[in-house]
């Protein structure tokens, strides 16, 4: 039997090494020419509590973990409970569990044609005198055999992982792998995946890619403060920046972090920070001075469940309103959103392009799923991506420098941007301020001047909107009668959904503000039914699109709080019920 996707779950707790085993599977898949995606989930315990890893491998690119598991390894039935809402069994699921497990099978693990295989994990290790710690490698072996993957790939993977360890360690692990690989006597009838091309691909998380692509896009300064689920961006870019002569500061809080970013950017250096909801809320005042002083800044927000501390490890799309509207006063900004791991690459280029070109703050709304997923991806192209540079002022022979020059106001081609003279440039000294000011940057409390400067600052958005009018994707048949709009990780769930629902088309904006309104209107034209699907309680995108006049009351609002990805079953139900 051949299929093009397989879905695995590993569930256990501290010491079981479920994440380690799952990562080895992913690395092996990447080595074989398969695609795959992996997410993790935790119980309430800080470390050592229940944890689950979900892996989907596929012959084609895959960005969303599959709903119904084909193979489940569960080390303790009592560990399943925290994950009961997020795992579902395929009808013919294979379940591996310890031989010693005496408890009744939990409801969630039941399935019509369940194949239940007890494994004496403990005994197997003990028999060979292997330490407890080798369990994850042994489990990796068992799974590899069950998947029917070649032993060689598994061995290569282990050699790689332990390449910096002693030979003794390597051979012990190879032995554990071997025991696992040969344990199952009867063949498990899992379908076989045949890679379309034998090529080694890369395994990377959304956060890692955000960091790397930021540097590729020109980022040379980072300041941040740790917060789940964004910290890996700082940790990754910390390794990358020194290689390109960049600098990083770990700040004492998020206000300082974005402040440092603005300081570096004032110095002419493309700069960014990354955070999650609570940190983003703290950055609100600083975002305003970025708008006001026209100093570029890129801010990545890995959205988690809110409000307040919420659920730090789980994704939600409820920071949208904050990104669009937060901050006292009228403060222009741009808001972008990747929809999966690989699109983080494009998004980061767009972010630096817009920030540097239009001299304003750019928010990137990632989320916990995109941030933390490990995905096998193809080589990423950089050519063709926008890579704007800041328009600097080098002197114009004598006439005084105007930081916020309005000289071209009457030129319809002017995009509102005034060239910036960087510190160090002779003859163009000036001071900028968050206080309202005139062309020279001089403080002004004149109301008419304020209106003029507001016009200048927002003029940039008009031209930016023109440039980004095509920053969206359409999936499915654009003339299908049911048209759906979604963004972020929810969009990739819907992308998958529309491939099997031919009566549906999907619109995914890459930029949320300014929204590609004209494109959306085109997309919706002639629809018999339209829905906005999102993961937050209030329907933030829905109301935003209504505020723009782009949709009316006939479009459905389909939303619920975050924390769990939509499954196809749930989407079936939601579309059946119809939205509010």
């Amino acid at each position, binding site marked *: 039997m051949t299929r093009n996707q397989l879905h695995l779950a590993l569930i256990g707790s501290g010491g079981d090494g479920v994440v380690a085993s799952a990562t080895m599977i992913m690395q092996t898949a990447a080595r074989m020419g398969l695609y795959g995606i992996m997410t993790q989930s935790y119980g309430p315990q800080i470390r050592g509590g229940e944890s689950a890893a979900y892996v989907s491998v596929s012959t084609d690119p895959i960005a969303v973990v599959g709903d119904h598991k084909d193979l489940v390894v569960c080390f303790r039935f009592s560990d399943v409970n925290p994950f009961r809402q997020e795992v579902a069994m395929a009808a013919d699921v294979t379940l591996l569990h310890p031989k010693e497990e005496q408890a009744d099978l939990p409801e969630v693990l039941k399935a019509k044609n369940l194949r239940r295989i007890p494994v004496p994990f403990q005994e197997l290790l003990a028999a060979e005198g292997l330490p407890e710690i080798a369990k994850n490698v042994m489990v990796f072996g068992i799974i590899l055999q069950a998947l029917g993957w070649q032993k060689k790939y598994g061995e290569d993977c282990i050699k790689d992982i332990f390449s910096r360890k002693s030979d003794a360690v390597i051979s012990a692990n190879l032995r554990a792998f071997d025991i696992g690989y040969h344990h199952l006597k009867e063949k498990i009838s899992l379908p076989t995946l045949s890679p379309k091309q034998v090529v080694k691909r890369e395994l990377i998380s959304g956060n890692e890619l955000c960091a790397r692509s930021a540097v590729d896009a020109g980022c*040379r*300064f980072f*300041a941040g403060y740790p917060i789940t689920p964004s910290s890996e961006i700082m940790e990754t870019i910390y390794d990358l920046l020194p290689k*390109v*002569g*960049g*600098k990083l*500061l770990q*700040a*004492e*809080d998020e*206000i*300082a*972090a974005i*402040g*440092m*970013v*603005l*300081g*570096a*950017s*004032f*110095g*002419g*250096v493309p*700069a960014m920070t990354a955070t999650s909801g609570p940190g983003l809320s703290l950055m609100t*005042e*600083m975002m305003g*001075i970025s708008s006001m*002083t026209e100093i570029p800044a890129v801010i990545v927000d890995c959205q988690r469940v809110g409000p307040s501390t919420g659920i730090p490890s789980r994704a939600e799309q409820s920071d949208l309103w904050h990104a669009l509207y937060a901050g006292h006063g009228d403060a222009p900004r741009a808001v972008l959103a990747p929809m999966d791991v690989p699109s983080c690459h494009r998004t980061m280029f767009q972010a630096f392009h817009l920030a540097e070109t239009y001299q304003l703050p750019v928010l990137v709304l990632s989320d916990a799923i995109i941030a933390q997923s490990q995905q096998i991806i193809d080589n990423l192209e950089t050519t063709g991506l926008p890579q704007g540079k800041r328009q600097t002022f080098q002197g114009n022979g004598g006439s005084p420098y105007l930081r916020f020059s309005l000289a071209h106001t009457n030129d319809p081609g002017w995009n509102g941007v005034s060239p910036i003279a960087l*510190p*160090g*440039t*002779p*003859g*163009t*000294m*000036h*001071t*900028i*301020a*968050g*206080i309202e000011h005139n062309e020279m940057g*001089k*403080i002004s409390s004149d109301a008419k001047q304020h209106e003029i400067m507001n016009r200048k600052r927002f003029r940039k958005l008009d031209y930016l909107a023109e440039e980004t009018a095509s920053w969206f994707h359409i999936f499915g048949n654009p003339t299908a009668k049911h048209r759906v709009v979604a963004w972020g990780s929810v969009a990739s769930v819907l992308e998958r959904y529309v491939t099997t629902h031919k009566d549906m088309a999907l619109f995914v904006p890459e930029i949320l503000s300014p929204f590609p309104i004209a494109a959306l209107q085109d997309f919706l034209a002639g629809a018999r039914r339209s829905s906005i699907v999102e993961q937050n309680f209030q329907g933030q995108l829905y109301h935003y699109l209504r505020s723009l006049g782009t949709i009316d009351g006939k479009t459905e609002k389909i939303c619920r709080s975050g924390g769990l990805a939509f499954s196809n079953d749930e989407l079936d139900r939601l579309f059946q019920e119809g939205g509010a």
Partner: protein
Amino acid sequence: MNDLNTIQRKPTDYRNEYKPVWCTGCGDYAVLKSFTRAFAKLNIPNERIAVVSGIGCSSRLPGYLDTYGFNTLHGRALPIAQGLKAARPDLTVLACGGDGDCFAIGTGHFPHAIRRNPDITYVVMDNSIYGLTKGQASPTTSRAFKEQKGLIGVEEPPVNPAYFAFSMGAPFVARTHAGNMAELSDLIAQGIQYPGFAFIHCLSVCVTYQGRGFQEEIDRHVHATPANYNPGDERAVFDLLRSDPFAMGVLYKKPLDEAAFDGNRDVPVE
């Protein structure tokens, strides 16, 4: 980069044409003059200087200099100055602001700027009042003054800025007052030349909300550090800083080699 020695700049070369908004008699005028004198003394090309401030009367200062400047947010001069200095170590970066800016809303950034020890000179213009918002008690307002004026926070003892900086590990700590421009400009120049974080506590009168009594008290009590005072002896520094708010001059100074632990000071981000 211009050669430092081709021309000799005058203090007025560092002033732009804007008229300060400060009240007549405000101490900040003298601080502004002292900035320009220090720059002229070191003959730094205008374009190599960047001054970052927060919000307050005092934080308007960069706007009157013919250098680069960033008049940021209340309390946030230090993070922004640090980002700038980290990205552009080729610039001479100074920060300035008021007592409220540094010791109320900005309190959290001060110890960490000190720990990172960037080559920044930070001048706090301490009028012991929130000037710009019309005279509320700041963290440095004396209890007696609060009591007299009926200000909020009478029970709270004032922050001791130089001692705060020293305790947090600042390698260069000095104090003077706006009435002594010679000393102030000299200390600013010393701070700039010092290869680490230099903190200068400058008493500067707010004639409008603190009143002239403030300057009179300074004038009455001000004195140099004792002749035998050793600003490298931490015990002596501790004793002086806790007991004597009117000793002026360099109060603490770490030997230069200990101070400059960031080896990479002059390479800007590529």
